[in-house]
């Protein structure tokens, strides 16, 4: 089998009793790059959190499967082991745990006991990926995300992506707060991952990222649903014209969650 398939069907998600996602349908296959765009507060991060199993989000209906296996039945770590990855919009900071120790622990969690990656091999791999992402090698010994700048955190998320080689990755605003050089480097990292075995869902507000990573499919979210899908040209039109034309087309007045069409 070439790549994995992540299938989301009629997904409903609530947070603290409030329904945010109201029936999302999406399928991401290995080899494909999808982009999700949409105004603030329309449920994009909620979707990514629900896929990964964030403790605060409650799935109230629908299904998520990875190659037919029920993702919603899995613990967060099992989802990662199954091949999912989420680059978070706001990565946590963990004091006292070095980036290197964390990543080694993450890699070893995928290995059989007694078959852990050797320290040498790990260091070599980490060094080469850091060099590829033009990161200061000292970052390996810094505490995980602690005191990292916004851009450094994003780059560190991509480092994890490259080290862990997931089957399906969701990148939530990986481009926010990046200067143009960092944007290029991050795009380079994602493009390096591209291939038959890798599927990706990119959440972004900006066409500028999609200039570097051409998506196969573009979706627009409003009111907790995917309201429109198309090819790369859809993203370009959004960039030049904004969202009003879609709202008009669909008769939506307020696109945020909680407002019904």
């Amino acid at each position, binding site marked *: 089998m070439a790549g994995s398939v992540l299938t989301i069907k009629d997904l409903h998600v609530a947070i603290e009793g409030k329904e945010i996602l109201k029936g999302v349908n999406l399928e991401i296959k290995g080899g494909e790059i999808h982009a999700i765009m949409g105004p603030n507060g329309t449920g994009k991060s909620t979707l990514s959190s629900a896929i990964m199993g*964030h403790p605060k989000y409650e799935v109230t209906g629908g299904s998520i499967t990875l190659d037919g296996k029920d993702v919603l039945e899995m613990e967060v*770590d099992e989802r990662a082991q199954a091949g999912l990855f*989420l680059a978070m919009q706001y990565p*946590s900071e*963990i*004091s006292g745990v070095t980036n290197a120790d*964390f990543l080694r*622990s993450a890699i070893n*969690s*995928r290995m059989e006991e007694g078959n852990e990656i050797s320290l040498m091999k790990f260091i070599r791999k980490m060094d080469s990926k850091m060099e590829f992402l033009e990161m200061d090698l000292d970052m390996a010994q810094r505490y995980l995300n602690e005191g990292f700048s916004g851009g450094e955190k994003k780059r560190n998320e991509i480092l994890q992506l490259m080290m862990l080689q997931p089957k399906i990755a969701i990148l939530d605003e990986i481009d926010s707060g990046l200067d143009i050089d960092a944007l290029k480097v991050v795009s380079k990292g994602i493009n390096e991952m591209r291939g038959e075995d890798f599927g990706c869902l990119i959440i972004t507000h900006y066409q500028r990222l999609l200039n570097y990573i051409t998506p196969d499919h573009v979706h627009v979210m409003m009111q907790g649903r995917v309201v429109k899908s198309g090819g790369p040209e859809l993203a370009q039109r959004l960039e030049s014209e904004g969202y009003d034309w879609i709202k008009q087309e669909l008769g939506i007045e307020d696109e945020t969650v909680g407002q019904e069409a």
Partner: protein
Amino acid sequence: MTTEIKLPFDKEYVSSFSKDMGEPAWLTELRLNALANAENLAMPKPDKTKIDKWNFTQFEKHIVGSEDFASLNDLPEDVRNLIDLEAGDQNLYIQRNNRPTHLSVSKELQGKGVIFTDIFTAAREHSDLLQKYFMKDGVKTDEHRLTALHAALLNGGAFLYVPKNVEIAEPIQAVYIHDNKEANLFNHVLVVADDNSSVTYVENYVSTVEEANGIFNIVTEVIANANAKVQYGAVDTLAKGTTAYVNRRGVAGRDARIEWALGLMNDGNTVSENTTNLVGDGSFGDTKTVVVGRGEQTQNFTTKVIHFGKNSEGYILKHGVMKDSASSIFNGIGKIEHGATKSNAEQESRVLMLSEKARGDANPILLIDEDDVTAGHAASVGRVDPLQLYYLMSRGISQKEAERLVIHGFLAPVVNALPIEGVKRQLTAVIERKVK
């Protein structure tokens, strides 16, 4: 109100024990006075922990019989792991319950006049020197019932004396093994560093029994005379069921330094008091403490630095993790007495709770009786951030491993800053074992 109690040992027993040990008259007398006081004195009152139901006074055996170990290789594995068996010229004291069972002091240290021996031998062979310092300027016998009882029933310990101008590079080590469920230990460690000397002492209280009801009444006195430097490391791992009162106190003279590196890892109920009296001008005290509580245990950790001398500096850094239903109080007290101008008192206490049932409380206290000083404190008590665990788990790390990483991370700023390598290593291993 002080409730009178009936002690299990009377003055006939104590004086005949003292005689059997060949102790000098002053020590017998000190014991008997303390015994008389013990019945009437009040119990200590560690802030915010009620200990009136804890049993510190009722027990059967004052001394248990223990065999010697045929060789260091025959030590229990938990103990062998603590010492460097390869080291040729080591300075090591091992006590099994109440019995001094091994002592080695290098020729070099002997030549320099360093005394390192068990407390009974010290009483016999270095009576005057011991008398000069024993429970005089550090911990006094009549502070409360437990210090009195300690002096009366003293049944183990060590004496380390470093003469003027002698600087010892290699750590001196003591291991107090608890391997008999009937044992009760009234252990006294006295470290005296005379003018311009320096020494590092590392000790372990280690239970090799799983569970025991033993009573541990432990007192340490560190006397650092003018310009002396003492680094004092300890890793305590007493078993579940034990009840421990551990009082480690230092007195720093002019320009003297006392640095504590404490891993308080007992599994039983523990009151741990660590005080540094900065008596001399320009003296320096630094306490770094790491705690992991688990099971049902209740603990109280009071760390105190009292500034008497001008230009004295005191630092307290204390991090603790509470698991299961463990509960603990972290008191940190920086006290600057009138006249201790230009002194600086800093403290930081942090407690991380890993479960709903765990309890922790940090009380930073600054008592300042002088205007011209600087002081600061930081304290926090919190639970593990579920988002941190989510983040780690989203990379495939199991919940257990994620918690392990967060705990190590939380304790790392203290562990990494410990001044004694051996303690750092031991502690990392104990933490690993306890958080599994």
